[in-house]
């Protein structure tokens, strides 16, 4: 019973800390995921674009592809916690001890880390689109970019949404490592609370539940969004072949 009372006391006393932590965690992971997705889209489109016939452009394209490959390997192959330290203190090292502002630094680190994963997710998404979609677009005169923009990317977005929401959930949890550079996200706030009340188990139990609530809500919301993107379920099935007047319209009831 004392446990619950202690929990209640912590909530009552430290809720501004916790709320601030939640806010920061959501802010960084949301922006990080979106920015990561943008990085993923750009790199994915660049890497799946056929090489130009122009020699110079082809060389540049190959170099850019090489840089992207290195970026992906490095950021997927090292822990984000270490990346945070290297980037944050590396910047300070090169600027006479002046450090990056914390929140932008946190967002930057999460973004480029997520970007490395998104790059592969998007590339997979683009590759999985039927070649015929491109050819259909080319055949009416669309350029590769137009085909990407109006035909392929919208389909890719829908297909990769489950992976993107997965990345978002991972980011909500993994922003906790940013405490090593002092970003005031939820895990960091827990440390601050413990510093005052010394109730380690109780405080982390609260934080644990809070993380779960965040990830669970985000998953549910994105699942709804996915359903919406997949279109209505009660679409008309078109039966007959030749005579539109003789069509059999079967309206499925919305579930």
């Amino acid at each position, binding site marked *: 019973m004392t446990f619950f009372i202690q929990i209640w006391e912590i909530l009552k006393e430290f809720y501004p800390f916790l709320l601030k932590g939640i806010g920061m965690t959501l802010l960084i992971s949301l922006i990080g995921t979106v920015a990561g997705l943008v990085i993923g889209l750009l790199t994915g489109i660049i890497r799946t674009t056929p090489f130009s016939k122009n020699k110079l452009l082809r060389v540049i394209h190959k170099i850019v592809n090489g840089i992207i490959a290195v970026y992906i390997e490095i950021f997927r192959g090292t822990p984000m916690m270490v990346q945070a330290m290297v980037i944050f203190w590396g910047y300070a090292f090169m600027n006479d001890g002046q450090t990056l502002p914390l929140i932008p630094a946190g967002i930057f680190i999460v973004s480029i880390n997520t970007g490395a994963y998104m790059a592969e997710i998007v590339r997979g998404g683009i590759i999985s689109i039927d070649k015929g979609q491109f050819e259909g677009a080319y055949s009416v005169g669309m350029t590769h970019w137009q085909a990407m923009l109006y035909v392929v990317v919208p389909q890719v977005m829908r297909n990769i949404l489950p992976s993107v929401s997965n990345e978002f959930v991972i980011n909500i949890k993994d922003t906790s490592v940013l405490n090593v550079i002092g970003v005031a996200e939820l895990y960091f706030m827990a440390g601050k609370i413990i510093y005052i009340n010394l109730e380690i188990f109780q405080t982390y139990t609260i934080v644990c539940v809070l993380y779960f609530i965040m990830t669970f809500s985000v998953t549910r919301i994105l699942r709804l969004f996915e359903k919406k993107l997949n279109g209505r379920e009660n679409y008309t099935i078109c039966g007959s*072949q030749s*005579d539109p007047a003789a069509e059999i319209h079967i309206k499925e009831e919305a579930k």
Partner: protein
Amino acid sequence: MKEIVLEHLEKSFGDHKVLLDVNLTVDKGEVISVIGSSGSGKSTMLRCINLLEEPSGGVIRYKDEDIRKLNLSKYRAEVGMVFQQFNLFDNMTALENCVKPQIKVLGRKRDEAEKIAREFIEKVGMTAFVNARPRQLSGGQKQRIAIARALSMNPEVILFDEPTSALDPEMVGEVLDVIKSLAKSGLTMIVVTHEMAFAREVSDRVIFMDGGVVLEEGTPEKLFGNPKMPRTREFLSRFLNG
């Protein structure tokens, strides 16, 4: 007037030579059927004309100009293509499939593009389905929308790459009927097909391809009625005798 001219067209995929030396002249308004067995290079030739495949040798001329010197986007807008697998944009409705390319490629205003698209969708008898998504349509319906999409660009030429080969027998007729009606409209058409009766009925000229060359060509009466080459006779007899 010459619309499309192929001179010594060659295409290989690695070591595999698909087109050896294809020569063909297509006049404006002419309807040409291309027949031949699988692997004879019919589709590859068509895809080269649209530059979906880069020719390995030879020249393709459109209105007397080397197509590789033309603006690719503009050229493709004038030389439309209809595919065996339809290739409708899965993320758009039937109407949008016909509207979007007009806006993005031809720079037409939405109102104008929609008007034109609806006109052609009506022409292929698909007005009831303007708001359907490709996944809701049958093969024949998809192909008719694909034809409407090509027509919406107001092309000079349409290339048909086995437009009925992926369809159930029941749906072949509806698509062929649409193509037949186009043949009378003065559009230049090159149709790769296995539908011999159709080829005989609509074409001004029939091309028989074999082993990467045009082996024989002539009016439908001549080519079907009195083929000169033994290989042509063999191919046709297999079709006619089932």
